[in-house]
């Protein structure tokens, strides 16, 4: 038990802090759910890559820095501290990239990883289907072998980034006779292939972070399959596994929100303290963001020491999504009658993007496996309760 940074870790923090100070755009980029914003975010990914900051945990030969998870957490802390842009490239960098490193052929690694690192290819997810949401093993979209191609027919939904992305990775049923998690394969699909129709899904806030993707006789070369045919489920489980889940939801994001909440409270204290429970809610949110960071450092330590991944992906999911709701509820309570005003109204600039965050937080308990499913998993796998 040694809860202090090494000199090397301190130096790493100083280096990224200095780089961010000179490189983070002064003005926030437009949302990457718009065409213009997507372009601007892709540019930012290229800037990160040039500084070798786009994927610090990747090996140096791929333009990374071979960082361990503690350094990764330090990077994230500095990244969020600096208010740097959201990562439009996260599907590639955090999910697909590491999966290709584990399951890809040498050729696939050469072909895909450098383009991910550089932000040249932005990736969309293709997991869910209309009738395979919480129950992902119910996937029905088929990829039927035809010579050296798969012919894909069916529909994916809730496909993040798919509106503007270049590629999609996902699970498809390559054995039409199979059921549940058998007979699935993990296939990489260029989104400009003929037969693909992408239909944006508008969210609560009116933007389109997700899309439906329709496949109509879409032909994809067999060499786009990652891992063995029929072994897609275990490849996908690795993709969805904890270590990457940890990277997608690093604590720094929530600590940054908690700090902003404290500032919002302090700036409106005379008003907010009329409801004496608000102070407690703000302090509780701050403590929980802190707890989330500590738990992540603890898990990272375990993994670095060779520990196995447990049910942390599920406990994390519940904890951060409920924390995010709590923080935005507290913000709305502080804002009172101003809470409903959208940030795009210039005069309400001081309110910042709390209402956007509030809407976004609503999705937390739902996506990436609803919290109900996570609680089942925790009960059955962590506590050993009967199925």
């Amino acid at each position, binding site marked *: 038990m040694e809860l202090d940074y090494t000199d090397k870790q301190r130096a790493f923090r100083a280096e990224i802090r200095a780089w961010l100070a000179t490189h983070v755009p002064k003005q926030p980029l437009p949302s990457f759910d718009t065409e213009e914003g997507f372009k601007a975010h892709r540019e930012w990914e290229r800037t990160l890559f040039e500084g070798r900051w786009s994927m610090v945990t990747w090996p140096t030969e791929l333009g990374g820095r071979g960082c361990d998870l503690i350094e990764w957490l330090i990077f994230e802390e500095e990244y969020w501290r600096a208010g740097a842009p959201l990562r439009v490239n996260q599907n590639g960098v955090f999910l697909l990239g590491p999966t290709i490193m584990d399951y890809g052929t040498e050729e696939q690694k050469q072909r895909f990883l450098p383009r991910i690192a550089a932000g040249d290819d932005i990736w969309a997810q293709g997991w*869910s289907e209309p*009738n395979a*949401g*919480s*129950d992902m093993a*119910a996937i029905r979209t088929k990829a039927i072998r035809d010579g050296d191609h798969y012919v894909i027919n069916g529909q994916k939904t*809730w496909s993040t980034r798919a509106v503007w992305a270049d590629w999609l990775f996902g699970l498809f049923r390559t054995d039409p006779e199979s059921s549940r998690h058998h007979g699935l394969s993990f296939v990489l699909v260029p989104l400009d292939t003929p037969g693909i129709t992408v239909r944006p*899904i*508008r*969210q*609560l806030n*009116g933007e389109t972070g*997700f899309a439906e993707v329709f496949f109509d006789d879409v032909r994809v070369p067999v060499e786009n399959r990652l891992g063995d045919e029929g072994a897609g489920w275990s490849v996908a489980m690795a993709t969805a596994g904890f270590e990457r889940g940890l990277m997608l939801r690093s604590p720094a994001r929530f600590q940054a929100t908690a700090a902003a909440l404290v500032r919002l409270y302090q700036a409106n204290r005379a008003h907010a303290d*009329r*409801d004496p429970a*608000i102070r407690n809610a703000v302090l509780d949110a701050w403590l929980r963001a802190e707890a989330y960071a500590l738990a992540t450092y603890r898990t990272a330590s375990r993994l670095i020491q060779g520990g196995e991944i447990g049910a942390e992906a599920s406990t994390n999911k519940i904890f951060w999504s409920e924390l995010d*709701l709590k923080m935005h509820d507290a913000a*709305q*309570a502080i*804002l*009172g*009658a*101003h*809470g*409903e*005003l*959208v940030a*795009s*109204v210039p*005069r*309400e600039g001081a309110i910042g993007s709390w*209402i956007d965050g*509030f*809407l976004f937080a*609503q*999705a937390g*308990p*739902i*996506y990436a496996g*609803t*919290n*109900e499913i996570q*609680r089942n998993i925790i009960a059955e796998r962590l506590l050993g309760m009967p199925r």
Partner: protein
Amino acid sequence: MDFTFTEDQLALRANVRSVFMKEVAPELLRELWETDTGRSAELWQLVTEQGLTALSVPEEYGGLGLADIDWVLMAQEVGYYGLTEPLIDTAWVGAALIAALPESAAAFKDVWLARIAHGEAKLAIGHPLNPLVENAHVADLLLLNHRDEVHAVPRGQVTLTAHASLDASRRLFAVEWTPSEATRLADAEVGRTLWADALNRSVLAVAAQLSGLVTRVLDLAIDYTAERKQFGKPIGSFQAVKHLLADVAVELEFAKPALLRAAVSLANGHSKTGLHVSHARLALADTATLAARHTMQVHGAMGYTWELDLQIFMKRIWALAAVWGDKAFHLQRVADHVLASDTVLDPSQTFAA
């Protein structure tokens, strides 16, 4: 002691409900989001034809003279269907405020109460508790609070700046105007009583709408969870999904009687009207925010989409949650009663003045 509605009251509600069901469809609400005013002349015509604009205008001015308790039924339907028109501010809160004006405003009352009853006027109400005024852009007349005085100002004499709400049905405006002798209908002393009444009535209206909204999102969620299947059965058969909605049903069951008592107290000028209204408001705001969260949760990712109608009603819930006084304001009114040294607290006091 009787907590039930008369058959007339239930019949009125059934009638309005069937009209709104047909005419105030979610598709129409979405269409109106995209329009400049967000308001519909046809809908206004409809509520006028239904006699709703005349509901609480005194009979001598051509109205029906019904009371706050009838309006609670109407406001629940307004909430359930998401009616966009300024019916409540015009025909309930506004009409009551005008009807209570002193004799000195007799001529004004004659004109405006008749117009309201006939659906010929829309009103907007400005009060310091709300930073902005809803519907100011379509109002023929604005009733405005200036240091507790009551002022009536035609729209032509105010300057409006629009502000967007997360609920695109709500049209909110900062209002610039100049109080004058000509606009003043009541001085501060008289106005204080009138505004206290208007405040309670507006809060009650918010609570009643929230009650309707809770029922709406519950209905949507019950339908969705009966149809949507996962793991081979309707998700509504999973215990976790059931309990999320049962929690909402329990809260609603105990919020509604508080709403009814508040309406009766307001109508009767009960000494604890403020307490009762704030109770209803607090209970229904809590119930409604819980309902939004739980119904969204059982919808899964669908609940987060623009496409599903759930969003229309969730956003209304979130927007109304701090209108006409936030939680702190209403809880303070409760504290002022409960924690006062001369308050008698024992089980016999529920209906005591």
